[in-house]
């Protein structure tokens, strides 16, 4: 299965990005091959509105079944749930560390938004 991680950079040792919709990169990890793929999310950095919605669509397009991030807003959560993508919380560390915690079952699953909507 594929897991997308909100990242500040394009490598596995990049720090996590605390934002979901405006994270510049998602590192998509394949649990079968152990490989990472960097997916550019930069088009949403400057979008006036709906960055979380667009980002959720981008993640759905990667075929990821799970996503790791620090904060998820209500609109992003609705789109991710519609796409049957599970959300896991990880507040800090690197992408690789987050993936290890995910594989060890240490990350808390999110079932509702943990931050409010903003514009």
């Amino acid at each position, binding site marked *: 299965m594929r897991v997308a991680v909100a990242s500040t950079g394009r490598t596995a040792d990049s720090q996590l990005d605390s934002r979901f919709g405006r994270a510049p990169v998602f590192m998509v990890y394949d649990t079968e091959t152990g490989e990472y793929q960097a997916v550019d999310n930069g088009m949403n950095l400057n*979008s006036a*509105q*709906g*960055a979380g*919605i667009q980002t*959720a*669509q981008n993640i*759905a397009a990667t075929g990821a079944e799970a996503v790791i991030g620090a904060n998820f807003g209500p*609109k992003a959560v609705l*789109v991710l749930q519609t796409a049957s993508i599970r959300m896991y919380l990880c507040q800090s560390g690197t992408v690789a560390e987050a993936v290890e915690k995910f594989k060890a079952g240490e990350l808390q699953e999110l079932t509702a938004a943990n931050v409010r909507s903003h514009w």
Partner: protein
Amino acid sequence: MRIAVASGKGGTGKTTVAVALAVSSGVPAQYVDCDVEEPNGSIFLKPAAGSTETVSVQVPEINEERCTSCGRCARFCRFNALVSLGTPPLVFPELCHSCGGCEIVCPADAITWKDVPVGEVSIGQDTRTGLRVIQGKLKVGSVLAPPVIKAAKAAASNLPLTILDSPPGTSCPVIEAVSGVDYVLLVTEPTPFGLHDLTLAVDTMEELGLPFSVVINRADEGDDRVENYCRENDIHVILRIPHSRRVAEVYSRGGTLVEALPELSRVFREIPGEIEGRLG
């Protein structure tokens, strides 16, 4: 004649100037509060209860029986108000700008429209002056100010003088408020913030091709940078309002500028005529 009172910076005295202009005119006039996020002209004008109408915008509804989940509507939408994941689209009505594009690109005729209220427009009459008072008010939680401003302007009747009290800033609500007016008064104050935001407002008016003059409020305070800026850029200063404890006292009781400084009444009455002269 339609005169909009705008500014870059908030709190410079737009409403103070707009109300003073409207009550001093001496001709049948109306005051339109286009500052729909925080309309406060009625604190000073005290209109008797009149009529109120709801302002709505249209947002798409998806007929899921007709929808083929092709996703064209979601790809078209620039505002991310529609999302399709191989499913009939999710709709986020608060992001929709009612452009109608989704309906045009839908090959299955699956998009219909429903009204969503975003605010209201009330029309009343100031009991003391007979002034017609129109107020747009954005609904709490709604972010679409321009449709409410447009509706408030549309409610204005054809009187000799219309004063539009604009929101602050230089973005969409301001553009909507000032578009189509004959003249704009930019209210500022002699402070670094006042100057900075005045330059933004001047750029906006020049971009829109609207003629304007500047009103300097609390003119004897602060520094002379606003005066210098106006002189260097050939910008007409139509009025300087003195800083006065008396104005603050009357204002704090809901009184108008011309009640505080009656000598300004004649000055404000002559402003529309002066603007007419400048327009030639």
